[in-house]
C-alpha cells in the first residue's frame, strides 16, 4: 500500500529540453495541464457552435458568413451533433477527470507520479489525435455528421444515403470516439492502479480527499463503460465499412427506385443498449469529479470538516454502482420491453438517494461554518444550486409514463445541461480558480473571477430554465426550426430570450480566458498554501517540482481537519506530525 521509498529520487531529475518537458512529457502535471488546455480548446469550439445554432433558432433568416445563405437543416443538425460530442467527450470527460485528476490525484495521495507515466502520455496523445479526427469531419465532403451525439443506427450505419454528413463525416466521428474510448480506458487503468498502489504511508482509504475518491470512482466507471462503447463503435464501423449487420435490420429502403439495402439481421436497439450502458455512467464520469471538487472546496472555505465524510465517500461509490443499472431510462419509448422500463425507473429513482445524501451533506458542511466567498467557493455553491435544480427535473424523466410526453423535448435539454453541463462546468471552474495558485504559483484575479461567476450563474439559469417550459409544451429537440408547426412558431420570443441569454453567458467566458492568461504572468504571487488548506497538494511548493515531494510524505490524519477544537490554527494539514501541530494554550 505504501509508495516505495526510492521513487522520489528516481524521478528527481527533471527532463531536459522543451519537447521532453512540455510536449512529450511523462510528468503527470504536464499531462494534466495538456488535458486542461485540450478541454479549453474544445470548449471554445463547442461554445462557438452553440452560438451559431442558437442564432439560427432565434433568427432563421440571418445569414452567418460561411454558411452560403440561411442555415440549412443539415447544417444545423451537424452543429448540434458536434456541439454535443465535443462537450460530452472532449470537455466534460477531459477536464475534470483527465485534467485535474492527472495533476492532483498523485499529489493528493502523496505519490510522485502516475503508476504508468508513459501510458499516461500515450493516453493524452491518443485523445489529442481523436480530437483532430473529429474536427476533420467539418472539412470532408458532406460535412460533419448530423446523427446527434448518440449516433443511433440505421441513420449512423448506412452511409451518405441517410443524409449529408452521414458519409465520411460520420465515419470520422466513429473513429474519433473509438480512439477516445481507448485512451480513456488506459487513463482509467492508470488512475485505479495509482490510487490502489501508490498512496503514501498513512494515507488510508478513509483519509483520502473526496476528490481522490471521486477520481477513483470515475476511473472505475470509465474502465467499465468505455470498453463497451469501444466495442459498439467497432461494430458500427464494421456495419459502415464492411457491410456487416450488427445494427441494421433487413429490408431498409431509402430510395424507392433502389432495391432494399443488402443488410439483414441487425438490431438498432442493440446499439441503444450498448451506447447507454456507456452513456449513463458517462454522465457520472462528467459530474462525479465535480462533486469531489465541490466537497473539497466547500470544506476549505467553510472552515469546517466535510459533513459526513464517510457517507460522502460511500455515496460516491453507490452512485457509481447504480449508474450501471439505469441506462434503460434513456430508452423508455424506444420499443424495449415495457416491463424492464419499470425496473429501470425504480433504480433511477433510487439513484436520487445517494444524490440527496450529497446535497444534504453539502448544506451540512456550510451549516455552522465561517464562509469565505472566494471565487472557487462561489462556483462550488453554484454547483450545489445547479445540482439540485437539474437533479429534481430528473425525477420527472425517471418515470416512464411522464417520459412519454417529455422524452426528446427541451425539458430533457434543460435537465441534462443544468445537472451535467453547468454543474460539471462549475466544478471545473471551481477547480481552476482553486488550484491555479498551486499549478502556476500565482492567484487568479478575484474581481474578474467574481464577475465571471455572477454573470455565468445568472445567465446560465436564464438560458436553461425557459427550456423546461418549452419542453412541457412539447417543443422537440434537434428541430432545425418550427417546421410549420404553429405552437413552435409561437415560441419565437422565448427562443430570442434564450439566445440572447446564451450570448451574454458565453461572452463573459472571454473574461475567464483573459483572467487565466493575464494571471499566468501578472497574478498575485502565492506561497505553498494560500487557502490555508489541509491536503497534501498544499504542503509542497507552487508550482510543484518534478517528482512533487522534496521529502517522501507521510500522512497523520484525515483530509478535512478544519477548526478542530484545541489547536491554534483553524486547519491541521494532513502531513504534519502530531508534535508539529501547535496546540491552543487555553
Amino acid at each position, binding site marked *: 500500500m505504501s509508495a516505495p521509498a526510492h521513487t522520489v529520487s528516481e524521478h528527481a531529475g527533471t527532463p531536459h529540453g522543451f519537447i521532453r518537458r512540455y510536449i512529450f512529457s511523462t510528468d503527470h502535471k504536464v499531462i494534466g495541464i495538456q488535458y486542461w488546455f485540450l478541454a479549453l480548446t474544445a470548449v471554445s469550439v463547442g461554445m462557438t457552435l452553440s452560438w451559431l445554432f442558437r442564432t439560427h433558432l432565434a433568427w432563421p433568416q440571418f445569414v452567418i458568413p460561411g454558411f452560403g445563405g440561411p442555415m*440549412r*437543416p443539415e447544417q444545423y*443538425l451537424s452543429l448540434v451533433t458536434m456541439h454535443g460530442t465535443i462537450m460530452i467527450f472532449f470537455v466534460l470527460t477531459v477536464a475534470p477527470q483527465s485534467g485535474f485528476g492527472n495533476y492532483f490525484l498523485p499529489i493528493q495521495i502523496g505519490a510522485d507520479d502516475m503508476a504508468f507515466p508513459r501510458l499516461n502520455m500515450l493516453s493524452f496523445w491518443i485523445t489529442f489525435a481523436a480530437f483532430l479526427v473529429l474536427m476533420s469531419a467539418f472539412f470532408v465532403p458532406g460535412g460533419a455528421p*448530423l446523427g446527434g451525439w448518440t449516433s*443511433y443506427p440505421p441513420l449512423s450505419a448506412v452511409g451518405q444515403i*441517410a*443524409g449529408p454528413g*452521414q458519409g465520411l463525416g460520420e465515419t470520422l466521428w466513429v473513429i474519433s470516439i473509438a480512439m477516445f474510448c481507448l485512451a480513456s480506458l488506459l487513463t482509467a487503468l492508470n488512475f485505479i492502479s495509482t490510487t490502489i498502489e501508490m498512496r503514501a504511508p498513512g494515507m488510508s482509504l478513509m483519509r483520502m480527499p473526496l476528490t481522490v475518491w471521486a477520481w477513483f470512482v470515475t476511473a472505475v466507471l470509465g474502465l467499465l463503460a468505455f470498453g463497451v462503447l469501444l466495442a459498439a463503435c467497432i461494430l458500427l464501423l464494421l456495419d459502415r465499412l464492411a457491410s456487416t449487420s450488427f445494427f441494421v*435490420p433487413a*429490408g431498409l*429502403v*431509402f430510395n424507392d427506385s433502389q432495391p432494399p439495402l443488402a443488410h439483414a439481421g441487425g438490431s*438498432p436497439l442493440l446499439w441503444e443498449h450498448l451506447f447507454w450502458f456507456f452513456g449513463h455512467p458517462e454522465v457520472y464520469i462528467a459530474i462525479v469529479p465535480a462533486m469531489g471538487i465541490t466537497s473539497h472546496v466547500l470544506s476549505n472555505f*467553510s472552515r*469546517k*470538516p466535510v*459533513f*459526513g465524510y464517510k*457517507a460522502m465517500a460511500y455515496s460516491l461509490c453507490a452512485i457509481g454502482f447504480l449508474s450501471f443499472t439505469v441506462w434503460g431510462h434513456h430508452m423508455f419509448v*424506444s420499443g424495449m420491453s*415495457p416491463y424492464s422500463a*419499470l425496473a429501470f425507473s*425504480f433504480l433511477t*429513482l433510487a439513484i436520487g438517494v445517494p444524490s*440527496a445524501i450529497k*446535497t*444534504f*451533506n453539502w448544506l*451540512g458542511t456550510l*451549516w455552522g*461554518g*465561517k*464562509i*469565505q*466567498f472566494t471565487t472557487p467557493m462561489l462556483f462550488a455553491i453554484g454547483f450545489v444550486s445547479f445540482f*439540485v435544480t437539474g437533479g*429534481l427535473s430528473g*425525477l*420527472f424523466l425517471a*418515470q*416512464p*409514463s*411522464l417520459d*412519454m410526453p417529455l422524452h*426528446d*423535448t427541451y425539458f430533457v435539454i434543460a435537465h441534462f445541461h443544468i445537472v451535467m453541463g453547468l454543474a460539471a462546468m462549475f466544478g471545473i471552474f471551481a477547480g481552476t480558480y482553486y488550484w491555479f495558485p498551486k499549478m502556476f504559483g500565482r492567484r487568479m484575479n478575484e474581481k474578474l473571477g467574481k464577475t465571471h461567476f455572477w454573470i455565468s450563474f445568472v445567465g446560465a*439559469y436564464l438560458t436553461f*430554465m425557459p427550456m423546461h*417550459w*418549452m419542453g*412541457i*409544451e412539447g417543443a*422537440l429537440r*434537434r*428541430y432545425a*426550426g418550427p*417546421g*410549420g408547426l404553429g*405552437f413552435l412558431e409561437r415560441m419565437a420570443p422565448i427562443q430570442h430570450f434564450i439566445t440572447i441569454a446564451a450570448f451574454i453567458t458565453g461572452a463573459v467566458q472571454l473574461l475567464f480566458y483573459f483572467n487565466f492568461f493575464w494571471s499566468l504572468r501578472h497574478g498575485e504571487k502565492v506561497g505553498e498554501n494560500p487557502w490555508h488548506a489541509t491536503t497534501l497538494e498544499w504542503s509542497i511548493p507552487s508550482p510543484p517540482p518534478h517528482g512533487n515531494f522534496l521529502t517522501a510524505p507521510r500522512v497523520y490524519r484525515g483530509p478535512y481537519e478544519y*477548526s478542530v477544537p484545541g489547536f491554534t490554527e483553524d486547519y491541521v494539514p494532513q502531513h504534519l506530525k502530531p508534535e508539529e501541530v501547535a496546540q491552543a494554550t487555553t
Partner: protein
Amino acid sequence: MRSGEGQRRSGATAVFLALFLTVFVVVTVYIFAARVFPMPPAISRVGHWIDSQYDLTLWITGIIFVMAQLGLAWMVFRYRDRGQKVHFTRGSHVLEVTWTSATLVLFLFLGAMAVHAWAHVHFNPASPNALKVDVMAEQFTWNFRYPGPDGKFAPTAPKYYNDANGNPFGINPNSKDQDDIVSPYLEVPVGQQVELRMTSKDVIHSFFVRELRLKQDVVPGMLIRVHFTPLKIGTYDIMCAQLCGMGHNRMHSTLRVVSDAEFQQWLKKQEAENQQ
C-alpha cells in the same frame, strides 16, 4: 486574520447570493405553478392520469426545490464570515439516516404512483374491437393504412415500396387484396380505441401526439404496437420525435378525431377513390 474590508465584501456577496437564490425560487415557482407555459389539454384518459402524476411530481419536487435552494440561501447568508467561531461538527448519523430513508420512501412512492398509466398503455393489449391502423414511417413522411372493407391487411414486401404510385407500404400488386386504404393522415372516430402497428422503412422515427401524452419510437425491423382512445373531436399534430435526418422537423402529419358518422363517411370516400 481577515481584514474588516474583506469581511464587508464577504457580507455583500453573501447577501446578493442569498437574494438571487430567493428571487430565482420565487420566479421559478410562479412560472411552474401558474402554468405560464401549459401542456395542451389532454384528450384521453391516460393523458389525464399522466397529468395528475405530473402534478404530484411537481408538488414533491417543488417542495424539495424550495427547501434546498432557500436552505442554501440561508446557509450562505447566516454563516458568512463575520469573524464568528465555527460550530465544529463532523456530521450526524441520526440526521443522515433520517433523510436517506425519507428520500428513499418518497422517491419509490413517486415511482409506484407512475406505474398505473404506463401499465395501461403498455401491459394491456388493445381490445379485439380496436380500430387497427398500420403506420409506416419514412424520411420524412408518415403513412397510415386501414384494412378496407374486407377487414384484412394486404400482404406487403419492401421490394414493392413505391411512394410515387401511392404504395408506401409496399402492398403486393399481385395480391387479390387491393382494398386497403392508405392515407397521409390519421383519421379516427372519437371514443373508439385505436391500435397502431408501427414500423419504419429506413431509420428510427418516433410517433408523438402531445394531446395523447403519447410518444413511441418507430424502429425499422420491429413491429411496435400502441393503443389509445381519443375522447375529444379535433385535429392534433403528429410529430416525429426521434432525429431521423435533415427533414426531421418537417416530418409531421395530423391526427383527425371525428364523429363516428363522419369517420364512416370518410372510409366510404376512400374506398370509392380506391376503386377508380
